[in-house]
């Protein structure tokens, strides 16, 4: 129970830090890091609920988190790519302010 509780509380704390960071941060990459932190908190909490006893572990949360990690990586990469595209457009605008 204590081990499970430590993981759950840490997951919730990570989620909280990420949520606060998401609100406070202005830069898009900072926001992305904050969203990732929230996601990791959710994963941790979800994994902590998988433990039912000393030797009974529910494998479904494990499988879903494994899937979730890969999707989160892909989503983060797409967001970073969009962020780079935005900064490219900003730079072009800075170069030619009349357009």
């Amino acid at each position, binding site marked *: 129970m204590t081990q499970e509780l430590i993981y759950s509380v840490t997951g919730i704390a990570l989620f909280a830090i990420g949520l606060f960071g998401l609100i406070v941060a202005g830069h898009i*990459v900072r926001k992305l890091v904050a969203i990732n932190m929230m996601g990791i908190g959710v994963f941790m909490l979800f994994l902590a609920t998988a433990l039912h006893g000393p030797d009974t572990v529910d494998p479904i949360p494990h499988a879903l988190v494994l899937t979730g990690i890969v999707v989160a990586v892909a989503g983060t990469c797409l967001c970073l790519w969009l962020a780079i595209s935005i900064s490219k457009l900003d730079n072009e605008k800075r170069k030619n302010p009349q357009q």
Partner: protein
Amino acid sequence: MFRNLELVEADSNRSGLSVGALWFCALLIAVTCGALIAAIVLSPKAPPEIAALIASALPQSGVENPVTAVLLNFRSYDTLLEIAVLLIVAVAMVPGRTRVSGSRAATVNTDHNKDPMLADLVRWLVPIAVLVSGSLLWSGAYAPGGAFQAGAVLASACIAVVLAQNHSLQWQSHRARGSLVIGLMVFVAVAIACVAITGTLLQYPGAHAASYILFIEIALTLSIAATLLLLFTCLSTTSATVERSMDGAKTGHPA
């Protein structure tokens, strides 16, 4: 890779919230988290019915590792959709979107100044990483491991090769494009074959479940590795072009 991203840009760093609003947000988040922790401590645990159900069905699944059984047999639809998501991201980011030419996925750079340390490291590291990847893929049947871990290790080996700058990748080639889609293609083909044989989507015919799973996992490993490699190379090359354009902006218009 991210050295051109200015995190401390004066105009976009702050969200513009006042100190009072920030404290209010922090308080609200703290209260919510306290409620969440209380809910977790106080709520009764759900009985582990699903774990027992999976344990009882495990002998029919074709693998001994329950996580692999869930990923590729009991809930393989999730994994199918996940590889589809990866493919969508890859399609969004792949360079030279409409042009497909050439068959070589990588060409050798002859004119590049090679870093001897990195080249030697790659020579030793990449074969070991490929072996580890294959071992992880195989051991997924009875221990933690499987297509995702194997794909990640394989992708890191490829990234090491790219960083050594001895080879350059040709994402518009047939083979590179093929490696991106092969995971989803094989998965969908197996799903359709399952409909033809057993009448249910992704319901493997009993005796051959293990070979179906291995077949899918090999294709998934290739596709996941290729997609992760594509994501890395796209981000590093686009940020390099941004850097160049920013340099141009700086020299053209000194602020």
